[in-house]
């Protein structure tokens, strides 16, 4: 299932709607890195509110997205990690290395719209 990516001014918003396979996640990574270049985006928001599981592969891919887009000059923020998912990540010892997070989409947009950014 492909993840829709919306262009909103200088930012891209990837809104994950349903459970993703590893191939879907890889596709999302490729799409985002590609589009950051096309649209000269300054920021990427990945909304994971709909995900009930973030396993080690998903974490690695999200970190990869953040690092690759950063090298292209865009900041990535992951929004909407569910409380149960956060609990499980900590128990697993999984860290979203180098990834900014906010509570929800609204906070994510606010982060990008602050004057310092």
């Amino acid at each position, binding site marked *: 299932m492909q993840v829709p990516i919306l262009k909103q001014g200088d930012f891209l918003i990837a809104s994950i709607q349903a459970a993703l396979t590893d191939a879907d996640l890889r596709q999302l990574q490729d799409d985002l890195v590609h589009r950051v270049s096309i649209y000269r985006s300054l920021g990427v928001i990945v909304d994971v509110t709909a995900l*009930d*599981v973030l*396993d080690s592969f998903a*974490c690695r891919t999200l970190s990869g997205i953040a690092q690759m887009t950063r090298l292209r000059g865009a900041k990535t923020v992951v929004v909407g990690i*569910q409380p*149960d*998912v956060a609990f499980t990540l900590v*128990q697993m010892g*999984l860290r979203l290395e180098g990834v900014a997070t906010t509570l929800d989409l609204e906070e994510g947009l606010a982060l990008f719209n602050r004057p310092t950014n």
Partner: protein
Amino acid sequence: MAAEARHLETSVPILADIDIVTARQQGRALAERVGFIGSDLTVIATVISELGRNMLTYAEKGVIRLRPHYFGGRRGIMVVAEDEGPGIVDVELALQDAYSTSKSLGLGLPGTRRLMDEFDIVSVLGKGTKVTVTKWVS
């Protein structure tokens, strides 16, 4: 209860990454029927995901069996992940944090062990690997 347990038992062949999604969704549904709530459901689904991915990465395929587990007045779920892959050379090493022979984070197996109440792994070189984990309703 034993009859119900057999009835609810399912087996998911893991041949492609979409099967991992199927297995964790079925595992979550079974865990709910057994009586798990909240973060335990996420924990169980995540563990199934890690075990499924290990199979695809190292053994190319395998089977995940999900069964309700009733023992000593306790209710739980048992997840058995079995493959006929190459086996693990050093199981102790594979259970250490951040150790991986692929490019993964190396947290799948050690994380799984931390998250579940019971953890057992049997791996025979050239024959395969069987991981059995149980979580009890608290």
